[in-house]
């Protein structure tokens, strides 16, 4: 498992945290997801044999955030 920290722009409230977390949890290979709107960060662990870092970024970008 690889650890990944992403800096996210565009999170304005708790719902943004929940939305990002819910979307990531729907994908296999991603776990231990921590989203912090005040810090503008997402920290997670992922299995690079199942999902790539780029795919994770795309999932977040699809919801309208800047990674």
């Amino acid at each position, binding site marked *: 498992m690889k650890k990944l920290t992403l800096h996210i722009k565009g999170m304005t409230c708790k719902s943004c945290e929940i939305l990002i977390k*819910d979307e990531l949890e729907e994908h296999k290979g991603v776990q231990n997801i921590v989203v912090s709107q*005040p810090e503008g960060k997402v920290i997670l662990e992922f299995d690079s044999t199942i999902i790539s870092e780029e795919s994770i970024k795309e999932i977040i970008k699809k919801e309208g955030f800047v990674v």
Partner: protein
Amino acid sequence: MKTTVFVPDIECDSCVKILTKKFKTISAIKQFTIKEDQIIFEHDEKSLSPEDIVKTIKEADFRAATNPFERKSFKERMRDFKENPAKYALERRGIIYALTIFIILSVLGIFAYFTFLHTIPNFAKDYGWWLLYLILSTTFLGFALWHIQSYKGKVTCMVGMQSGMMLGAILGATNGFFIGAFVGMLIGVLVGAWTGTCCGIMGVMEGMMAGLMGGTMGPMISLMMFFDHLLWFMPLYMLINIIILLGLSYLLFEEVVEHKQGIQKKHIDFVTFAFITLIVTVALAALMIYGPKSSFIIGGI
């Protein structure tokens, strides 16, 4: 059945997406429209009551009710301020501007004291506190006016009264009733009229009246308390005036800004804000120290 549920915490697109996802899983909801602070449902009332809908929304961690909510409490507003920095970006910027200007003015004041003001006999005793009150007044009044100026909308003209009360009281104490009332009234009326322009001629008139009253009451307070602990009274007087100014800014956000789109204007930049505040403070300080004085002033008390 058509049901309107009030949901005051819909802040952004993410809130809309989360709620939309939740509602789409409920077959009894035929249609729904999410608005600024309410959601209108068409639903099968036999299998899903309005109370069930409210419960579903609450489970998603939103406040919900079939009656309109009152505005956020002070505690809720402070929590919102801490948790949603983007929503209050302009206010946060204004606070930083005001703090910076206060520091700049204080440093300039200290510099002026050690370079030439200390040569004036009894300077610290006669003017020390009053210069501090002046710097506090221009900083907080500057912030309040900057905040008002940053939004389109119907806002209060009561900052005119505060301008008169604060500046009039200070100059009334240091220069006498005539100068205090003249300056307090002039500045109060101008500020009141300017802030009242949002609301037509009546707004302007009310602003001018507020400035007139404040500008004359301020020095009157100083005059009447010369021999009755004015120096003890002033910290409390200033504190209450500052609380009122901050309260007016708070109300500006509650009444004018919250839930309204497109009313933010291009705000005055820091350099302009600092320059104007500096000019006004220096001019009033110069008037205080070197301007005409009546025989009945605070010096020596």
